[in-house]
C-alpha cells in the first residue's frame, strides 16, 4: 500500500532576534494513504507550513522521519508536487512553458512535454491561455496553472500551502470546487494546509487540527461527494463538523 508516513517529526530553529531556540513542530506523527485528501488546519504559527516545507524537502527536520512509499524524503523532488500561496509561476515563461517545466526537467522529448502540458491545461479549463504570460492572467487563473503544473508530473503526493489565500472569496469558492472535481477525476494524494476551517471541511476526507506544533485532533469528514457550495452551505452535517473543528482551532 502506498503512503506517506510522518513519524515523530520535530523542528527547532534559532531565532537571532530573540537569541533563543524556537520549537516550531514538536513530535508530529501522521500517516496519509494513497488517494486521501487531508487538510491540516490550525491558527497562525502552529507549525503547519513548517511541516509542509519539511515534507516538500525545503527544510530538514531536526528529528523524526518522513517516509514516502518506504523511502525516506531528502530534498525537493517531482514526486512531491507543491502549490504555493504566491503561485510561484515563472513570469518569463508562458503558461504552457510553465506547465511543461516538470516534464522537461525529467528529460522527456519536447513534443511529449507539450502534449502533457496541453492535456493538463485542458483539465483546468485553461487551454486558451497556453501562450499567455502569467502576469496577463487573473489570480484565480494563475493558481489553476500552479495546480496543474504540479499535477503534470504525476506526483505521489500534492502539497498545497494555503493556495487559495491570495484570491478573492468568490474565486476561492470556484477554485475549491474545481480542485475537488480534479481530485475526483485523478485521485492524487493531497495534503492541504489552510487556516480556513470551512475550506478544510469542504475539501478533505480527513481534517488534522494542529496546535502549537503538535497534533491536537484528527477528524474524519464523511460528507458525500461531489461537494458543491450551494448545497453544503445549508447542510446540517457540514455546519456541525465545521463548528466542531472551529472550536478546536480556537481553543488551541
Amino acid at each position: 500500500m502506498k503512503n506517506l508516513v510522518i513519524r515523530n517529526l520535530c523542528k527547532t530553529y534559532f531565532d537571532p532576534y530573540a537569541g533563543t531556540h524556537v520549537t516550531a513542530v514538536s513530535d508530529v506523527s501522521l500517516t496519509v494513504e494513497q488517494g486521501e485528501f487531508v487538510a491540516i488546519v490550525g491558527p497562525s504559527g502552529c507549525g503547519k507550513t513548517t511541516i509542509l516545507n519539511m515534507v516538500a524537502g525545503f527544510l530538514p527536520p531536526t528529528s523524526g522521519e518522513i517516509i514516502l512509499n518506504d523511502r525516506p524524503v531528502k530534498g525537493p523532488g517531482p514526486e512531491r508536487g507543491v502549490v504555493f500561496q504566491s503561485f510561484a509561476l515563472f513570469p518569463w515563461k508562458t503558461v504552457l512553458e510553465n506547465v511543461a517545466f516538470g516534464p522537461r526537467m525529467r528529460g522527456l522529448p519536447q513534443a511529449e512535454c507539450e502534449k502533457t502540458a496541453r492535456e493538463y491545461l485542458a483539465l483546468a479549463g485553461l487551454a486558451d491561455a497556453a501562450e499567455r504570460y502569467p502576469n496577463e492572467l487573473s489570480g484565480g487563473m494563475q493558481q489553476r496553472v500552479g495546480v496543474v503544473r504540479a499535477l503534470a508530473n504525476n506526483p505521489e503526493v500534492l502539497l498545497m500551502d494555503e493556495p487559495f489565500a491570495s484570491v478573492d472569496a468568490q474565486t476561492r469558492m470556484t477554485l475549491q470546487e474545481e480542485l475537488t472535481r480534479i481530485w475526483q477525476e485523478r485521485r492524487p494524494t493531497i495534503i492541504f494546509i489552510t487556516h480556513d476551517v470551512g475550506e478544510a471541511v469542504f475539501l478533505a476526507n480527513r481534517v488534522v487540527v494542529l496546535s502549537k506544533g503538535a497534533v491536537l485532533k484528527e477528524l474524519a469528514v464523511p460528507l458525500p461527494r461531489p461537494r458543491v457550495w450551494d448545497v453544503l452551505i445549508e447542510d446540517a452535517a457540514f455546519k456541525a463538523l465545521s463548528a466542531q473543528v472551529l472550536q478546536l482551532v480556537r481553543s488551541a
Partner: protein
Amino acid sequence: MGDSVATAAALPRFPRLWAALKFVAPLLFLLLLWEVVVKSFGVEPRIFPSVEAVAAAGLETMQDGTLVRHIGASLWRVAVGTSLAIAISVPLGVAMGLSPAVSIFLTPLFRFFSVLAGIAWIPIATLWFGYGFGAITFVIFNAVFFVVAYNTLLGVSRIPMALRQAAASLGAGGWSMLTQVILPGALPNIVTGVRTGLGFAWRGLIAAEMIATNVGLGYMLFLARDFYRTEVIVFGMIVIGILWLLIDRLLLAPLERATIERWGMVDRA
C-alpha cells in the same frame, strides 16, 4: 520609454520608419536653425563653425581614414572592457546573490564600488597601466564590472524563494536552476546594470581619451582644440552623440523594455 511614438490612429504601413522620421525631424530642424543663425549673425568660424564647414571637415576625416581609426580605437576599447567585465561580473554576482547571508553582507561593499566606478579611477589607472589602451580599457572595465556585479547581486537575491522552491520541487537540477530560473529572474536587473555601467563607461572613455592617449574619439576632440579647429570638434561631438544614441536606444533600451515589461517584473535597485 522615452520615444513618443505615434499611436495607432495615424500609422501608415511602416511604423518603425515613421518613428525614425519623427525622431530625426526636430534634429534636422535644429540643423537648419544652426545654419541660419551662423550665417545671419556672422558668427566667427573659430567660435562656432557653419554646417558646411563641419560637413566638409567630417568628410575629410572619413576620406583620410582618421575617423575610422578613432572610432575603431574607441569602440574596440569599449568592446574589450565591457565583454570582459560582463563575463566576470555576472557569474560573480550570481554566486554572491544565491546565499541570503552573503548577499546581505556584501551588498554595501559592492554598492560603494559601483558608486565610485568609472571616471574616478582615471588617475590611478594611468599610474598602474601607463597611458594608452590599458588604462582606458581598465576604466571601462571598472565601470561596467562594479555596476553589473552590484545589480546582478541585487537581482539574484531578490528572486522570490518560492520560485526557486517551485523549480526544485519540479525536479530542476543545478544547471537547469541556473539557466531556467536564476538568470531569467535576475535578467532585468542585469540589463539595467549593463545599461547604467555602459553609460558611465562611455563617459569614462571620452574623458580618459582626452587625458591619457593619442588615438580615439576623445583624443580627436582634444587635438582639434589645440588647433582651434572647431569644425572638427563639432563633427566629433555629433559622431559621439550618434554613436551613443545607437548603442543606448537601439540596443540597450529595447533590451531593458523587453525583459522588464514583457515579463511584468518591476524591480529596481
